[in-house]
């Protein structure tokens, strides 16, 4: 657990990551709040808040008497969100660091293309 | 919105808890006193046996020696030990009981009931042992531990029972008061109290001597007799108990 950010946010992010990665497919059941809390060794109320965030965002929904399930279309929605944030979270810092090191934008693009080629092969 | 606590459990239950707490470790309340008494008894028996063996075997000498035994104060140690029990109970059990959520009032009343109960039980045992003592002719050596002059040799058993009970209560009461004083005021307070008490007693004795009043004191006690004296002691016990109550009401279990 990252000590400098609210834990409930980190819980929500973990679940989101699992949904995006496909570990938690749509319409499958998500572990209960208490299970999360016990597994991660955090306060159940905090875990509940994280799950609550996702329920509010429509990523999870509650089936009465059974538990929490991943909503239909959740993955697509999350992917769209992450794409929007990609620029601020990854691209901007990348360019700032490149500037610090004196790497031009054209070099950055070349680096990206080369690295991609290596990954693909 | 405020959460409210449900009603308290009944008083009898809470007092019962305090009483049970005092008895929780049978060693302190029963076994150690029993050991102490047994030890005192054993030592006394040896002394009686030695003296008896050395006494010429005529009825007069034997009667004399047996009568002498009745003045022995050995039996008093049992009562003094009750004071020790009360002091220890106050000191240690108070912090424990309060730590577990008992109120001071419940603890004081519960302790009082415990001591009264113990006093009653011990008194009965004491008188029974006195009967056994008489029946065995002084434990086979003419000894006298439970038939002491201090409780009235020729009084009926129920009067002696009252005397013994009163004495047990007295020592429990002053023990409780001393214990309470220690809990609240610690060693310094206790020393201060005893200093004042000693001065008071010495002062009182001096006053009586100077005014030549000792004979009056003697007459007074002769008039009230043993029973009267023990009845008066109950008043002192009540005062000591009250003092303990008032002192403990503002005491804290702080170490």
């Amino acid at each position, binding site marked *: *657990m*990252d*000590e*400098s*950010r*609210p*834990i*409930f946010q980190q819980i929500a992010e973990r679940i989101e990551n699992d949904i995006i990665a496909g570990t938690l497919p749509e319409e499958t059941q998500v572990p209960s*709040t*208490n299970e999360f*809390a*016990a597994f*991660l*060794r*955090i*306060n*159940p*109320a*905090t875990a509940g*808040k994280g799950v609550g965030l996702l329920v509010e965002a429509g990523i999870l929904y509650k089936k009465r008497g059974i538990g929490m399930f991943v909503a239909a279309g959740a993955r697509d929605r999350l992917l769209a969100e992450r794409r929007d944030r990609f620029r*601020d979270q990854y691209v*901007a*810092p990348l360019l*700032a660091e490149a500037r*610090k090191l004196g790497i031009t934008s054209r070099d950055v693009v070349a680096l990206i293309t080369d690295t991609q080629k290596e990954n693909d092969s | *919105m*405020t*959460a*409210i*606590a*449900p009603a*308290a*459990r009944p008083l009898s239950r*809470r007092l019962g*808890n305090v009483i*049970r*707490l005092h008895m*929780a*470790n049978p*060693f*302190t309340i029963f076994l150690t006193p029993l050991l102490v008494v047994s030890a005192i008894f054993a030592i006394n028996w040896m002394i009686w046996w030695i003296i008896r063996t050395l006494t010429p075997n005529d009825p007069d000498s034997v009667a004399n020696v047996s009568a002498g035994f009745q003045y022995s104060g050995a039996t008093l140690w049992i009562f003094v030990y009750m004071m020790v029990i009360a002091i*220890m*109970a106050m000191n*240690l*059990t108070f*912090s*424990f009981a*309060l*730590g*577990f*959520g*008992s*109120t*001071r009032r*419940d603890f004081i009343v519960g302790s009082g009931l415990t001591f009264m109960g113990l006093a009653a039980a011990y008194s009965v045992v004491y008188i029974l042992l006195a009967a056994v003592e008489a029946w065995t002719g002084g434990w086979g050596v003419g000894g006298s531990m439970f038939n002491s002059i201090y409780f009235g040799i020729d009084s009926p058993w129920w009067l002696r029972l009252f005397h013994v009970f009163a004495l047990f209560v007295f020592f429990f009461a002053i023990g409780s008061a001393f214990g309470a004083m220690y809990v609240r005021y610690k060693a310094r307070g206790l020393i201060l109290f005893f200093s004042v008490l000693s001065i008071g007693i010495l002062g009182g004795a001096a006053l009586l001597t100077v005014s030549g009043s000792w004979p009056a004191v003697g007459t007074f006690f002769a008039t009230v007799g043993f029973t009267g004296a023990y009845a008066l002691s109950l008043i002192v016990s009540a005062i000591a108990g009250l003092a303990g109550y008032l002192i403990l009401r*503002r005491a*804290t*279990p*702080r*170490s």
Partner: protein
Amino acid sequence: MTAVVEVRDLTKHYGKVHAVDGVSFQLEENRITGLLGRNGAGKTTLMSLLTAQEFASSGSIEVFGASPLENAAVLQQLCFIKESQKYPDDFKVKHVLRTAPWFFPHWDQRFADRLVTEFRLPLDGRMKKISRGQFSAVGVVVGLASRAPLTFFDEPYLGLDAVARQLFYDRLLEDYAEHPRTVVLSTHLIDEVSDLLEHVLVIDSGKLLVDSAADELRGSAATVVGGREAVDRFVGTREVLHRDGIGGLASVTVAGLDDAERAAARSAGLELGQVSLQQLVVRLTSGTATDFTEELSA
């Protein structure tokens, strides 16, 4: 929001020393609250006042809607596990476990038995003779098994090894999830318990410094590290919690940076360090700034 404890202007002084100084707060039902602060800050005194074991000098305390003083109805709902608990002479562990159920109406014997095995309590050990760790373990077992609606743990882990401590946290969380109750945990091992806490109270020299949700505190501070000038320029007029520095390097802990400000710091070439709950509390309560350059040149 249901309040279980309401404290207003509470003060306790011993002679000239104010152990608790004008403290006001509320404790919400069924929450795990951390009571944090340095040694001697007033944590134990505060808990002793709430459990009516000490008498307040002034101010008001309401527990379950009433004053806890000599109040059996309130007191039977409380459990206060303190490190300095006194036991009668000759009391063994088994005596404590035998007598505890009498005082706690919600006691769960099966839970207690399980905990005794897990913590390896020596049932025949004398309370005066067992090790510090075992002594604390007894307190932990009683506190957990009591299921008291308001349970106080005053530095319950003293002497407990890391395994036992983790066991305590695990069992506490587990039981709290199944049977919610209000728990107050005082500690200075903040990092260990920080994930358990929902709410945080920080006390320093008898005064309440912080009364907030744990999640709000997390992320409420960040450490900015970089060249002195760049750092000072970025910090500007922000609230500074702590200043550290050596040579041309400065490390300043500031309160509350949002995402935009963080991005700005990064693009200014500054590094952002995490500030854990423990570091935050240490910064708030230490009140000292270290600048080694000044010390070196002095």
